[in-house]
């Protein structure tokens, strides 16, 4: 099976937001980056499918030169090679532009299965995977928590793929679909593995194909302002040493909130 995994590089969870001067994007100089969390699970799922069914795992990422770091990390975890759609504008691009850019670089590869994360931790559109599926002419299913491939039915056959889709409130549903297909992966589908020293060494020699951004891609939305959200509730902040704060909180929970 030829499997693609789309990986986005996003600011770390610890990052404290700082805005650029026009307050329409973040100050990128201040940011440290990591692999988008569900994408790490998508990569792990691809590696497991390769272990079971053979084939190769190709990492696909769109972004400025900096995204090489997550590409190398994915290669170190075991992906075979990578495609990097490189352009400075892709760091802040919307889901339509990213999906079109990835589709152009991926379409000739004829992947059997494309995995993405269900949502990015930065822009959080929850769209890129599904739009990409449509541009690649594949069916999609989203928020996936298990992937079963029946290799005997082969390409193009109905029920080649059976996936477990998460629904709200602890419900799930199995869905059968043909290959090739695109799935958006939910965090927690598997247990992640981390790169070994051997993997890191091996990654240095793996191929990263550079693809250029197609001309004329149109964004579908524009950020006109970015701000720290306003608070809806008046939080009473309790200061002091841990012991003093604990004492005051317990007292207030007992006497003011009557919650203890």
């Amino acid at each position, binding site marked *: 099976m030829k499997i693609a995994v789309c990986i986005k590089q996003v*600011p770390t969870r610890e*990052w*404290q937001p700082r805005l650029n001067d026009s307050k329409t994007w973040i100050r990128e100089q201040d940011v440290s980056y990591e692999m988008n969390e569900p994408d790490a699970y998508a990569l792990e799922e691809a590696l497991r499918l390769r272990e079971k069914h053979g084939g190769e795992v190709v990492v696909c990422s769109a972004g400025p030169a900096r995204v090489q770091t997550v590409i190398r990390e994915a290669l170190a975890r075991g992906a075979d090679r990578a495609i990097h759609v490189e352009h400075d504008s892709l760091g802040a691009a919307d*889901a*339509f532009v990213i999906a079109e850019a990835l589709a152009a670089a991926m379409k000739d590869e004829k992947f059997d299965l494309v995995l993405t994360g269900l949502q990015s*931790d*930065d822009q*959080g*559109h*929850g*769209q*890129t995977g*599904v*739009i990409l599926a*449509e*541009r690649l002419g594949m*069916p*999609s*299913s*989203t*928020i996936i928590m298990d992937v079963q491939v029946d290799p005997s039915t082969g390409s193009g056959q*109905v*029920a080649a793929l059976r996936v477990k*889709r*998460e*629904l*709200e*409130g*602890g*419900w*799930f*549903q199995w*869905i*059968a679909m043909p290959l090739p*297909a695109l799935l958006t992966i939910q*965090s*927690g589908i598997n247990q992640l593995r981390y790169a070994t020293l051997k993997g890191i060494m091996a990654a240095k020699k793996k191929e990263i194909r550079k693809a250029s951004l197609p001309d004329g891609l149109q964004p*579908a*939305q*524009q*950020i*006109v302002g970015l*701000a*720290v*959200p306003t608070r809806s*509730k008046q*939080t009473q*902040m*309790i200061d002091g040493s*841990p*012991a003093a*704060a*604990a*004492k005051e*909180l*317990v007292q207030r*929970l007992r006497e003011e*909130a009557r*919650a*203890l």
Partner: protein
Amino acid sequence: MILVIAEQRDGKLNRATWETIAAAQQLAGGMPIKVAVLGAATAAVAQEVASAAVAEVLVAEHAALEPYTPDAYAFASRSLIESASPTYVLLPHTYQTRDFAPLLAARLRKPLITDVTAISGTGTDAAFVRPMFQGKLAAQVKPVGGPPAIVTMQIGAFRADAAQKGGSAAVRKVDIQIDPGAVRQKPEAPFREAKQAVDLGQAERIVAVGRGIKSQENIPLAEKLAKAMDAEVAASRPICDNGWLPMERQIGSSGQTVAPKLYVALGISGAIQHLVGMKGSRTIVAINKDAEAPIFEVADYGIVGDLFEIAPALITELEKS
């Protein structure tokens, strides 16, 4: 015109549809609103939404719309949109919408703005507020290249009871063609996995632990605090994903929804998918080392600090009396 696409399953309306109707009424600025109901048997749902103050209810019935699949829904809603020519298409940001709205947008080549929490302005001048960077920032965005622009509303962001009712809108059937052969997903029946041995919905107090707890070895600290408060232990999703606590103790959109007397969030950042499961709690306490963490937005009491110092101090304090 604004087209609201209602969500129903097995002939039951998803309440979030009313939130979306309320959002549409706020956005309208004089534009008429229509509500579309898709499904195989939609009469009851159509009647229910017809009580809203809207111009018309459009019903698209087809056997291929039951059970739900993204292909059939994208197909049906596309033909509805092409015949009705709305300026905006509004949907609740549910898992079902996440599944088919991007497909619809991709096919129409029209903008999709997701997870909207507020609308500023009305009509074609409106801007939409949506969280970015895990809720650390709120972005004002405008669609480019509409109409229509498809916009999905975060669950709980608009009040269902704010939707204006207006008697009875006309219900009109719209003919749609779906080629069942073009529907590529074959769904099986939904099921529940977790044995619901604990019903956190009944708990008076809950101590919920998040990734701030760092490792499985530290879970007993949360359990000890819960015991001292006479509370149940619960968790954010990553804790359950890691298997540190069973999935049945997960709070949030994919876990349980609770509204206890007291909810203590220990090292939880406050992502929207967590907040929807607990923001109805009567008193919320947040303990987090990051003063900017979104959890403080819903907290009544907050302590900014290291939970490994605060939690033991709380246990000591509670055990004093």
